[in-house]
């Protein structure tokens, strides 16, 4: 694979995967209120 392709593959996985992990961590750290 070309260096450009590898870079974009890694960046896309890191950005989207990282965003997904960050949002999941936020949800876990802020559990839903039981009031409802």
């Amino acid at each position, binding site marked *: *694979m*070309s260096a*450009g*392709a*590898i*870079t*974009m*593959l890694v*960046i*896309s*996985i890191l*950005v*989207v*995967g990282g*965003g*997904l992990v960050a*949002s*999941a961590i*936020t*949800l876990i750290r*802020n559990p*839903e*209120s039981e*009031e*409802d």
Partner: protein
Amino acid sequence: MAREQWGSRVGFILAAVGSALGLGNIWRFPGVAYENGGGAFLVPYLVALCTAGIPLLILEFTIGRRYRGSAPVAFRRIHRNAEFLGWWQVAIAIVIGVYYAVIISWAAWFAYFSIGQQWGEDPETFLMAEFLQAGDLYDFGTWLPGLGIALALVWVATLAVIGAGVKKGIEATSKVFIPLLILLFGALVVQSLTLDGAVDGLNAFFTPDWDAIRGPQVWLAAYSQIFFTLSVGFGIMVTYGSYLKRKSDITTSAWTVGMSNSFGEILAGIAVFAVLGFLAFETGVPIDEQSYQGVGLAFIAFPAIINTLPYLAGLFGVLFFLSLVVAGFASLISVVEVPVAAVEDRFGWSRRKSAAIVGGGMALVSVALFPTVNGLMLLDVTDYFINNYGIAVAAPASIIAVVWVLWKWKELRDNANATSVFKVGPIWVTCLGVVTPLALTIILFLNVRDLVTAGPDSANAAYHEYQAFGWAVAGGSLAFALIMALLLRRKETPPFMTEEEARDAEEAAR
């Protein structure tokens, strides 16, 4: 009567992800990215996700939760004259549901055909001449029982899930289907990466063409992809948002749904281009000369690829087509939920009655019209017009009405922020009120121009030829909405409580 709610936040997110992750992720995104700069496309794509996709998800979840109703009820509660916007979205969902189920039934058949590669040496002839017996749009008459029975089964399963309710039906199904999809698709990605030529395919997919993203066309393609992939603009996320608990974190949920969808798309790109690389390696036909999008990719290119696989060919076929079935089914449930919930809410029907009559009516139309020799053409033309001139008009109209005309953005912003970890502010309003409607309007204008000027050899030739039918479908959805809103103008929605009143009523009921 208390409105049904999601049993858990995980259940809601899985259902919303199941809605967003559909056939378009697998068979549209990889081709769009490849045609628009490869790896460089990811830049406009991620910008579009953050400036249009996620802001829209936040808006729709908030409208649903704030006004506690499916699209027509929510818009009626926003303003008496806005109800038609909700019915417009319902009409679009009805049209999409009617044909979307058809593709799932095809994928189910192909999962079966994968065992022993029953499509033979020439998958294209098998698909068009034997399986679909494809003919002209106006070539009515021949109903194909094999296709019809599979389609009827898809509808029975869909209506059973919806009839069971939000928690026991949609949420419970999503909790099984989304992990199953991850498992199936994960296995598919791993197997595809082991093939000869897979690296060449990934190279073609990810190599950035930075010159491409200097032009506006690639940016519009990115906004278009984000817009059509997230199930926004036709009532799904408003309806799902209406089942949220009052204290749900809306912005983080929207972020999770948007990122999950994009992660699925990138994985689909890896799998699809790895196998296209393998096919190029085996046959010597370059990737850009192969079918890499839509029906051609799924039902012609993939069977051809499966035919050439050195090992576990049947398993690969079953994994791919079952992934399509599972992804499509979770999306279909969300699409059919829109009209079922709308009638349930607006007419006070029970869920089962609404599912049986509204969903059953959609099923009858679907089973009568699409398992026919003109089914493929009917599906293709309907899909093109309802997406490009249905959703793409109704969505900006709804956004402009809510943000600019009715000036509800402050109330909705405050409502979302009250229970969310990440707050939204001026950037959200700008993305929603300016960037998204502007991008959608330009896309709409370019699509109309391409359609009207389409020559006989262009990609839009078939749509140009059948545009009378297509405009009738797109225009009919608006006409339906206006008629429904007029008929229901004097019929008030059930009493709508403020958040404080709802809290008091719930406490009193305990």
